[in-house]
């Protein structure tokens, strides 16, 4: 790659590396032509990054496919042009495109666990690009591949080349994908949400690698994301796309400081900002403790008797080890951790759907095993799950779903049930006629509101929220978080708020617990976040978080 950098810098810099000029795209559907991109204009100079920000369905990914000339059959290009270093991509032939893909335009995908072929080694997949475009021999390609991997921060590149995707971590796989994208020293790289599938700390490392490589090679980048804070960290310019139109563009700092368009303002307002608290003041120190766990330990897997006899199955894994937490009345306790840290495991144990060891004291119940959890405990402790698609029974109407806790716990009778369902729907700001609908007729945010209504129907003393905003779009996330805080304040319920999003949890929680690989490593007042006495892991998490946006 180094010798190629010299060639690259010899290229004329006058023209932007990538341009779209009044580019419009539509899809043919049975219902007629649906416009996906309306007169898009973008321009990315060499060495610069353009952040393209939009929510799902905004058309941001369609633009990437159009640039790669990888459009589905029903796509219709309505006008405009896409230019790579001044050459029209729309005018290129199929075989020319094959020479451009991977060589002059690289691409990094959202999820490295699906974008890598499971039956080929990482080395083979990296080397094939070099063999194809740089006409290397297999041996040359493998040694060059090792060099590329080393530059992406992989410590033992030779060993990594021989591994299959399932033998590497998410971060390692994404490094291989990035190395592949940079392999032929392209003029431009498209990033399609490359860190969405990764943990906070890994994401940060991936972004750092990208920035270093960009400085070294002078590549232009189109960085597609829904995450404003993240884009604000790495992009030189930002374009905000909404329903196929670029509503606002500009230098990153200016745009975030002084947004002009309403949609941009709404997006910025929706991004979690730890300096703006959504919840009220912490409850009094003297407030009674509602929930306390002692040595809460959860083991996973473990073998059945038959499996042991057959010598099969995995040994038990501890999902959470000796967790001691307590929640006061009216308090929101945030639990923060990355995927696999054990944060959901804790939630499930307290909600009575995972076997545990240790003691849970809740309300006036003290239990030491799952089977001892009574129905009155369960009524008072309600759980809301991450994905409302999975947590609402697709065969039940919204009305039935919300009425179920009322009937189960005898909280309402006869016509009182219907009235209470209507009241709950109103509380979560949904129209009353939603009671007759099925979940699949609702949007993601609406479904999550139904799940919240179901939890509050039981008049709980504790609401356990397990990543309840992470499957939703940014603008919806904020609304759902606000709704939760309002209901929590109204009902005086306590709340366990489990999330991977540090900025969000700092807006909501009164105290924050940090879990790492099954252990509780830190527990502190929300205001105390930045203090030097924090656990090193908490500090690493904090550093890895993109800085919140301050308009």
């Amino acid at each position: 790659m180094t010798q190629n950098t010299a060639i690259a810098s010899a290229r004329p810099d006058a023209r932007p590396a990538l341009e779209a000029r009044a580019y419009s795209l539509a899809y043919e559907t049975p219902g007629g032509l649906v416009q996906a991109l309306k007169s898009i204009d973008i321009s990315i100079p060499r060495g610069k990054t353009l952040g393209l920000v939009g929510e799902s369905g905004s058309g941001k990914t369609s633009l990437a496919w159009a640039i790669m000339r990888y459009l589905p059959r029903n796509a219709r290009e309505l006008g405009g042009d896409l230019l790579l270093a001044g050459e029209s991509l729309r005018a290129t032939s199929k075989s020319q495109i094959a020479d451009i893909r991977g060589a002059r335009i690289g691409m990094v995908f959202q999820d490295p666990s699906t974008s890598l072929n499971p039956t080929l080694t990482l080395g083979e997949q990296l080397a094939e690009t070099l063999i194809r475009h740089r006409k290397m021999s297999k041996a040359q390609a493998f040694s060059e591949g090792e060099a590329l991997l080393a530059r992406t921060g992989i410590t033992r590149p030779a060993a990594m080349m021989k591994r299959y995707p399932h033998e590497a971590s998410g971060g390692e796989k994404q490094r291989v994908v990035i190395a592949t994208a940079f392999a032929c020293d392209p003029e431009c790289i498209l990033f399609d949400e490359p860190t969405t599938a990764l943990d906070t700390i890994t994401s940060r490392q991936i972004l750092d690698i990208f920035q270093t490589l960009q400085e070294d090679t002078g590549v232009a980048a189109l960085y597609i994301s829904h995450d404003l804070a993240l884009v604000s960290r790495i992009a030189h310019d930002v374009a905000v796309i909404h329903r196929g139109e670029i509503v606002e563009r500009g230098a990153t700092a200016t745009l975030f400081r002084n947004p002009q368009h309403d949609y941009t303002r709404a997006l910025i307002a929706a991004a979690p900002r730890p300096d703006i608290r959504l919840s009220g003041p912490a409850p009094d120190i003297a407030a009674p403790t509602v929930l306390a766990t002692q040595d809460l330990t959860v083991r996973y897997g473990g073998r059945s008797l038959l499996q042991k006899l057959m010598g099969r199955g995995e040994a038990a894994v501890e999902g959470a080890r000796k967790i001691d937490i307590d929640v006061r009345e009216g308090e929101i306790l945030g639990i923060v951790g990355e995927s696999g840290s054990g944060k959901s495991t804790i939630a499930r144990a307290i909600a009575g759907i995972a076997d545990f060891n240790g003691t849970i004291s809740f309300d006036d119940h003290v239990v030491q095993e799952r089977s001892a959890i009574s129905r009155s405990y369960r009524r008072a402790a309600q759980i809301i799950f991450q994905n409302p698609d999975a947590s609402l029974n697709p065969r039940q109407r919204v009305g039935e779903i919300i009425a179920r806790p009322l009937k189960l716990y005898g909280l309402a009778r006869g016509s009182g049930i219907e009235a209470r369902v209507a009241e709950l729907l109103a509380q979560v700001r949904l129209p009353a006629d939603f009671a007759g609908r099925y979940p699949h007729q609702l949007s993601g945010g609406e479904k999550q509101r139904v799940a919240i209504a179901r939890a509050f129907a039981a008049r709980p003393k504790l609401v356990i929220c397990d990543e309840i905003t992470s499957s939703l779009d940014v603008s919806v996330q904020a609304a759902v978080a606000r709704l939760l805080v309002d209901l929590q304040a109204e009902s005086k319920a306590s709340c366990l708020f489990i999330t991977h999003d540090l900025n969000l949890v700092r807006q909501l929680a009164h105290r924050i617990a940090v879990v790492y690989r099954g252990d509780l490593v830190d527990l502190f007042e929300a205001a105390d976040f930045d203090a030097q006495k924090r656990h090193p892991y908490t500090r690493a998490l904090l550093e890895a978080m993109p800085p919140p946006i301050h308009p």
Partner: protein
Amino acid sequence: MSAAYLLRRLAAILIVLLIVSLTVFSITQILPGNAAVMILGEYATPAQLQALELKLGLDQPWYIQYWRWFSGMLSGDWGVSMRLSQPVAALIGEAFWRSAALALASLATVTLIAIPLGILAALKRGTIVDLVIGLFAYVGTAVPEFVTATLLLVFLAGPDRGFLPAGGFAPLSEGIGAALSHVVLPAATLSLILTAHIARQVRSEMSDVLSSDYIRAARLKGLSERSVVLRHALRNAMAPAVAVISLDIGYLLGGILVVEEVFAWPGLGRLIIYALQNRDLPVIQAATLVLAFTYALSNLVSDIVIARLDPRVRYA
């Protein structure tokens, strides 16, 4: 794949055989007709019958009889056919290889035709090629073997269009031509339904693979279509294809019963039908176990092949 894994799988096959043997044994126990009466004929004297019952152990409780029989099966003593008065092991041994020849010929045909057909349909998805292959696959899976066999006979082995022999078996010693001409029709019959089924499954697996993220990523690296299909897609579609073939071997083993009967192929299938019609218990029991064992073993072989094809599959 470890030796321990193989041992465990073989143990699992033994359990399968145990269950099959218990099932078959209890089925044959309910069968009307006393073995001694069958052997000696209806006019035997009570004293003769009693003596034979004692000799055969028919006066013992069922579990003793079962254990005698099952341990005999494991040690190679498979008993004597009641009707044919020959050792069951010898009868089955001879018939098994003839059936195996037929089954392998069919399996080879199926694999060679069905997999390319399915891949072709997936690559040409939505075109006339796909439609034709799809239609063939649908119609093919809807025709039972006895119908295919009968129609093939009518059109290819009739008295006035006798291209091929209407049935029977010719060993290789009678010449390759004769042996092959006898195997063509029964093998074609067995192949039709399986080819149709497997082609359809391979098409759907291959379509899934072709629409996956990693195939898209391979295309966006600028790789040639040839490399995308042969290097990236094929291997991922092969493992599920092998799994389908292995499941269909069970169907194939059922199919040989009908096909051997129609084409008078003197194999295991025909022997079983004969034994069923004549209530020849030792033959029914042993032959069923042999078929079940063959099926279980072929599943094990296919799992090993799948592990070779897909690095994610690890048997430890």
